């Protein structure tokens, strides 16, 4: 990364492999790619809010693709992100049932540098289901698990975040939160398969 917060593609790939990518790397995507994506959505029956929502989803999908080893490097990061945006927006239009002439044109043109995006980006519904399950855990559980597994904070610091006086109490709470989610996953084969196939790094 240079002094202006600009990342090369190689820097971005490294950043997205980290459990928690640096905020600066994600900001770089917004600075360099958002206007182009927004322009595409606005020119294809979308509004400002659609553009923002789709771009946010595209950034998450791109990071997941990189992590799962599905980004093949055949195109630049910005180009791939643009393709994901177009792909997700077209799906959204289809979902909303808007029949557009452009849609037919989209199908004819093979402008996606990453083939089979549908396959690569699959699991949208599963991810949404998972997010609902985590939301249902409650604020303290979310804070504890995110602080431990994402922010990599030591237990002593997490105690401060959730106002627990005793490390053992915090450990017990973490155990209960994990157990609750583990039980919710029991019997949810598609979700488990999703994580197995995603090849997430430990």
């Amino acid at each position, binding site marked *: 990364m240079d002094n202006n917060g600009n990342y090369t593609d190689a820097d971005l790939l490294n950043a997205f492999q980290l459990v928690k990518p640096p905020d600066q790397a994600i900001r770089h995507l917004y600075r360099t790619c958002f206007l182009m994506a927004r322009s595409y959505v606005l020119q294809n029956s979308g509004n400002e809010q659609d553009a923002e929502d789709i771009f946010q989803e595209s*950034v998450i999908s791109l990071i*997941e693709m990189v992590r799962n080893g599905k980004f093949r490097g055949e195109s630049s990061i910005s180009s791939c992100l643009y393709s994901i945006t177009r792909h997700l927006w077209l799906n959204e239009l289809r979902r909303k049932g808007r029949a557009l002439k452009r849609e037919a044109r989209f199908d004819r043109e093979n*402008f996606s540098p990453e083939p089979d995006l549908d396959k690569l980006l699959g699991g949208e519904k599963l991810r949404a289901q998972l997010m609902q399950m985590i939301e249902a855990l409650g604020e303290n559980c979310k804070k504890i698990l995110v602080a431990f597994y994402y922010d990599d904070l030591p237990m002593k610091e997490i105690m401060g975040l959730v106002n627990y006086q005793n490390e053992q109490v915090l450990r017990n709470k973490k155990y209960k939160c994990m*157990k609750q989610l583990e039980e919710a996953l029991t019997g949810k084969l598609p979700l488990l398969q999703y*994580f197995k196939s995603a090849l997430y790094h430990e």
Partner: protein
Amino acid sequence: MNDDSTQTEILMQYLDGELSAEETARLERELKTSLPLQEKLERLRAVKQSVRLFALREQVKGIHQEMAPEYRKPAPVVNIRWVVLRVAASVVGIALLVMLYEYRQLSPSALYREGYRPYIITQSRGMSDSGTLPSAYESGRAQDVIRIFRSLPAPGVRDYFLAGNAYLNTGNATQAIQAFLAMRQKNEQNNTHILEEDAEYYLAMSYLKNGEIAAALPLFDKIHNDQGHPYHDKVGRWWLYKLRRTN
């Protein structure tokens, strides 16, 4: 704690790397022979990954909330005025307040965000030729366009034009101005008019992006006054008025 709870706790400690070497070896031996234990471990792994996925979404959402408003287009003034004009006389006061608000919001960067739309290649615009630079531009790879452009020994008019747009897309207005000026010079030298009106508009937008209002105004005036200019509709009277106020 029952057996199941103990087992779960040991598996969690295993995932968190908190078991001793001896305990790890014992558990791994058990895992080899116990399918229920393997399944439980898979589920706990999935829990850990789903937490990370959730946290990534939250992180991106936070950055999105911080960044996206910068790019939001201000509400169209004409509509506000239209609504205002349809109500009673007291609205004059409200209209003045709205104009005062707009005046306070004036800045070259706000006007640029309001007016800027990246150039899109269409055949009717005279960019039907193929090549690595146009195709890189078409697929939104601005950095690749710049890289290819820099490697060209003798760039043509269209190359300068697309490079100018790529620089503008990436926020480098100074380089964009240079590319558009070089392109216009080429047209003059060759006595051609390739993409001349497009370049006028995007050069003016580049000046605006760079805060050089005095240089941008004559170009915008020309586009506004020429009803046949393809970008005439993009340079409205009110927008131009606001631009003048920033100068």
